[in-house]
C-alpha cells in the first residue's frame, strides 16, 4: 500500500497526453496547415519581390508560429476539467506543479515541435538565407516553450470562464511582445551579420525562469478554479 513513485507518475501523465494527442492526429496537423497558409499569403499581399520578402521573413515566421500556437492553447486543460481527470490529478499524492509541467511538455511536443520542424521550409518560402536558418530554429526552440508556459498560466487563470479563447488571446499577446522582440532581434542580427547570441541568451534566461515559476502558478490557479 505505498504511493506511486514520482518518476512513474510523471511518465504516466506524459504518456497519457501524448497518447491522447496521437489518437487525435488531425488536431496536430491543424496549426501546421494554418502556419503554411498564412506564410503563403505574404507574397500574394506584398508582391514576389525577393528583397522585401527576405527582410520580413524572420519576423513573419515568428509571428505566424505564435498565432498558430495560440490556436491550440486553450485546449490545454479544457478536456481535463470537463471529464474530471483534473480533479483526480489534483487529488493524487503527487506534486501538482510537476504533473502540470508534464502536461505542458506534452502540449509543447504536440503543437510547437511540428511547427519548428516546418519553420525552415516556411522561412525558405520567403527567401530567408540558409545561413540564418539555424538562428531561427534556436530562437524558436527557446521562444515556443516560453509561450507554452506563459500560455498555460493564462489558460489556468481563465479555466472557469466559458468561451475563453478570445480573452486568452487578448491576455497572452501583450506578454508575447518581449519574446517576439528578442527572437526576431536574434534573426535580424544574424541576417545583418551581427552577433546574435545576446538575444538568444535572454530568451534562455526567461525560459529558465518560466520553467520554475509557471507550473507553480498554474497549479495555484487551477486549485482556485476548482474551489469556486
Amino acid at each position, binding site marked *: 500500500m505505498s504511493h*506511486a513513485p514520482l518518476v512513474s507518475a510523471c511518465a504516466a501523465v506524459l*504518456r*497519457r497526453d501524448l497518447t491522447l494527442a496521437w489518437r487525435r492526429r488531425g488536431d496536430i496537423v491543424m496549426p501546421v496547415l494554418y502556419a503554411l497558409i498564412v506564410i503563403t499569403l505574404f507574397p500574394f499581399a506584398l508582391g514576389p519581390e525577393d528583397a522585401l520578402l527576405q527582410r520580413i521573413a524572420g519576423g513573419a515566421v515568428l509571428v505566424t508560429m505564435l498565432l498558430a500556437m495560440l490556436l491550440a492553447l486553450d485546449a490545454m486543460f479544457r478536456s481535463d476539467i470537463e471529464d474530471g481527470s483534473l480533479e483526480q490529478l489534483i487529488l493524487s499524492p503527487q506534486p501538482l506543479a510537476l504533473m502540470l509541467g508534464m502536461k505542458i511538455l506534452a502540449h509543447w511536443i504536440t503543437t510547437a515541435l511540428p511547427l519548428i520542424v516546418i519553420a525552415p521550409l516556411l522561412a525558405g518560402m520567403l527567401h530567408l538565407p540558409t545561413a540564418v536558418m539555424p538562428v531561427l530554429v534556436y530562437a524558436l526552440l527557446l521562444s515556443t516553450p516560453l509561450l507554452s508556459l506563459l500560455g498555460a498560466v493564462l489558460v489556468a487563470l481563465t479555466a472557469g470562464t466559458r468561451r475563453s479563447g478570445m480573452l486568452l488571446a487578448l491576455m497572452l499577446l501583450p506578454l508575447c511582445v518581449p519574446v517576439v522582440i528578442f527572437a526576431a532581434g536574434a534573426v535580424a542580427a544574424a541576417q545583418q551579420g551581427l552577433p546574435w547570441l545576446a538575444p538568444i541568451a535572454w530568451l534562455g534566461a526567461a525560459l529558465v525562469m518560466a520553467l520554475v515559476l509557471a507550473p507553480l502558478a498554474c497549479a495555484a490557479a487551477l486549485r482556485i478554479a476548482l474551489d469556486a
Partner: protein
Amino acid sequence: MTAPDAVAPPLLEARALSFYRQDEPVFGPLDFSLHEGEVALVEGDNGSGKTTLLRILAGLLHIDEGTLTWRGKPWRREEHLGDTLFLGHHLGLKADLTARENLVVAAGLYGTRDGRSVDNVLADIGLAGYEDEPTRRLSAGQKKRAALAGLLLLPATLWLLDEPYANLDRIGIDMVNRLLEQHAAEGGAALVTSHGAVSFLHGEPKRVRMHV
C-alpha cells in the same frame, strides 16, 4: 495499557461543519463521525449539499466553519491525498483511452493496492472483453464500472462516492454493495451519497442527514 479498539479515535470526525457559497449557507452545521470499517449513507434532497460535502472531504473545497479531524488529529488536505478516493459526477475517464489505459494512468499517479493488477481488477468489475475498447464507446453503466475499477486497484482508506448507483443495473448495484462490504471488512471506510429514501445497502447503514 488500554484496549486499542476502545480508545481508537474515529477515522474522520466533523463538528459543526458548515459551508457557504457567496454568504448563502449551502449546508450545516453538520456533525458526524466515521470509523474504520464503516460505510455511511449521506442523505438529502437535491441541492442539500451532498456533493459539496464530499468535495470538501476530498480536499477540493475549503471549509468555511467547523472542524474536521482525521484519526484524532486536525484534518489537513496535503496529508491524506492519495489516502482518499473521490468518485464524482465526472468520472475522470479519458474518452479516447481504453479502460485499461485509464487505469494504468491512475495507478501511475496513486499507486496500486497489494495483490491487485489492472487486468484482474477489470475482470472483477465485469469488464472482461471490453478492456481495449475506447471508453467513449462504452455504455454509461460500463463507464461507471470502469471508474469503479479504480476503487479496487488504488490504495485508499476512505472512499467518497457520489451517486455510485446511478446508471447501474441490478447486478451493478449488487457489485457496488459487495465492493463496499469488502472495503469495510478490510478496515476501510466510505461515504456514499444517494438522494431520496432508497438505499440499496444491506442492513442498516449509518446515515448522515443533510439539513438545509
